[in-house]
């Protein structure tokens, strides 16, 4: 008997009688989602800024990323200085200073942003970059995780990720350190 067969046989022998699978009730979220989102991402070690248009983002980049050698934008709102088409292999992204992405959905309760791989080009991009900026339209903000799972189909993409803040760790005496392996900062621009 193969391992698969023996495991399944053991389950059939040992499992209890079938118990029902509950339906998901709705848990509506009230209040200002933009404010909730801002407060959530702050707790996760990131920040959210409201932007009226591309010029707000550009001026932010001018102040904070003027020395970036490798700024990679997958957004149509602002341009970078490196074309992702030149990166055939994810290892070519090793020295990316800043990645700018567009999020599909944002979740106010925990700041998570859904990024299916079509929005990343390379799955490694939002992890290997030293800093991360995500643009999100305010009308793409949802209250909680139940709502977002109603709207996305996780298997449409080979890979998708909820990113809720920069790379962080507290493994040394519970001291929070931002920038464990991935981005040392995450800024979300909430666009009208």
């Amino acid at each position: 008997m193969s391992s698969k067969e023996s495991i399944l046989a053991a389950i059939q022998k040992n499992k209890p009688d079938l118990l029902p699978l509950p339906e998901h009730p709705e848990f509506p979220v009230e209040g200002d989602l933009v404010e909730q989102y801002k407060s959530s991402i702050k707790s996760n070690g990131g920040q959210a800024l409201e932007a009226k248009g591309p010029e707000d983002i550009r001026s932010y980049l001018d102040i904070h990323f003027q020395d970036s050698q490798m700024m990679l934008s997958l957004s149509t709102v602002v341009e970078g200085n490196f074309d992702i088409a030149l990166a055939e292999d994810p290892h070519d992204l090793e020295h990316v200073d800043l990645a700018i992405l567009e999020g599909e959905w944002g979740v106010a309760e925990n700041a998570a942003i859904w990024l299916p791989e079509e929005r990343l080009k390379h799955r490694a991009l939002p992890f290997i970059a030293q800093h991360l900026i995500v643009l999100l339209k305010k009308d793409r903000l949802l209250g909680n995780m139940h709502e977002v799972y109603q709207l996305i189909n996780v298997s449409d993409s080979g890979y998708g990720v909820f990113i809720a803040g920069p790379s962080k760790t507290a493994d040394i005496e519970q001291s929070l350190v931002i920038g464990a392996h991935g981005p040392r900062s995450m800024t979300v621009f909430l666009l009208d």
Partner: protein
Amino acid sequence: MKLPQTHADAAAEFLKDTDRSHWHDDTLWHVRSKRDASAQKIPEWEQLRTLASQIKDHVLSNLDNLLLQFEKNAQANGIEVLWAKDAQEHNEHVLRILEENQVKQLVKSKSILTEECGLNHFLEDKGYDVVDTDLGERIIQFNKQVPSHIVMPAIHLKKKEIGDIFHEHLGTEAGADDPQYLTEAARQHLRQKFIQAHAAITGVNFGIAETGGFVVCTNEGNADMGTHLADIHIACMGIEKLIPRAADLGVFLRLLARSATGQSITNYNSHFHRPRKDKKMYLILVDNGRTKQLGREDFRNSLKCIRCGACMNTCPIYRRSSGFSYNSTVPGPIGSILSPGMDLKKHSTLPFASTLCGSCSDVCPVKINIHEQLYKWRQVITKEGPSQPSKKWAMRFGGKVMSKPKLFDLMGRMARKSLSISPRGFVYNSFNAWGKHRELPEVPKESFKDWYKKNRNK
């Protein structure tokens, strides 16, 4: 035959360092407090716990069908699915994959399952250098230790000790212990390992039956750094980690991080469904005692555990005795009900490492009745397991005395008399294990029975 070290003996070792034990206690209580604050912000928290528990109840009652559905969908996604009945088979699958793909260098993100299977030692014996990439795990790997907590593996170490470890292994400045500085050193070191790795091993937080994909949660992003750069991804998953629907993630992701550390969610929650183009993804489904536990009616629902660690952070025994005192891959209250099912002899003292206060059950996000199961394991162990001789003798004696009212009265009178006149050393000595850390109450002048006789007619 040498009996395995008891939990109490191991805890006594830890408690010798009073400062450290207080610090450990305070640190974990702080995490517990953050969990409370976070949970209290969610009005439907209790409803979510009930839902999570019911979903897992369904999973356990339909596990065979869900596993088949999961396998079918995963295969259709291009994931190679392997089954392992025990740790040995799991490790051999991993080795075969590495050999077939001529992998030389590999990185690994946190996986309690691979700890349970002893994968690192197995691969190291075959000549592989396994690089753990979770910061806490890398620290203890350098220090040749195992995790003392499932979410915070290096919680037993102080930053000064970590500074010394990094000085030795990464060449950081002697005496430097700033967490920011040490984390940066680890970042630089591990980045090289990520860039060079041919294969990445990860655990699995949730397998989704209806879509044939799986979810991995981290704060550091180390699982993603590994898998998206390497050609081979090997995901190791206990068979109980299944959930039926993607929408169930809404419930579990809301509960997991809040229960673990008080965060609203981990910063990275990755959903893997298909390998990258021309790359390979393997998924190993591991039993290793889980189907046996499924057959134990009293202990079955320990398999609902989602490994958040909340029961450890709240446990008065865990906080004061540290993870190592349990000598088990999963320590703390949940480990004390899972591990006896794997090896009753080795872990026979764990169900006694509890005050049965029930706090573990109160914080459990999937509502496992942990403290009731601890009590049930005690009964099983006392009936068949190797109990300590002193305890056995005391119980037998106590049982005899209490079954005979006249003898009980006599013993009571004798005890009241002798205790009130005995010198301290006569009562508190090596024969009185109970009195080692406890004071007897003040000896009353009369028994309750005598007092009642005197007072009932007043």
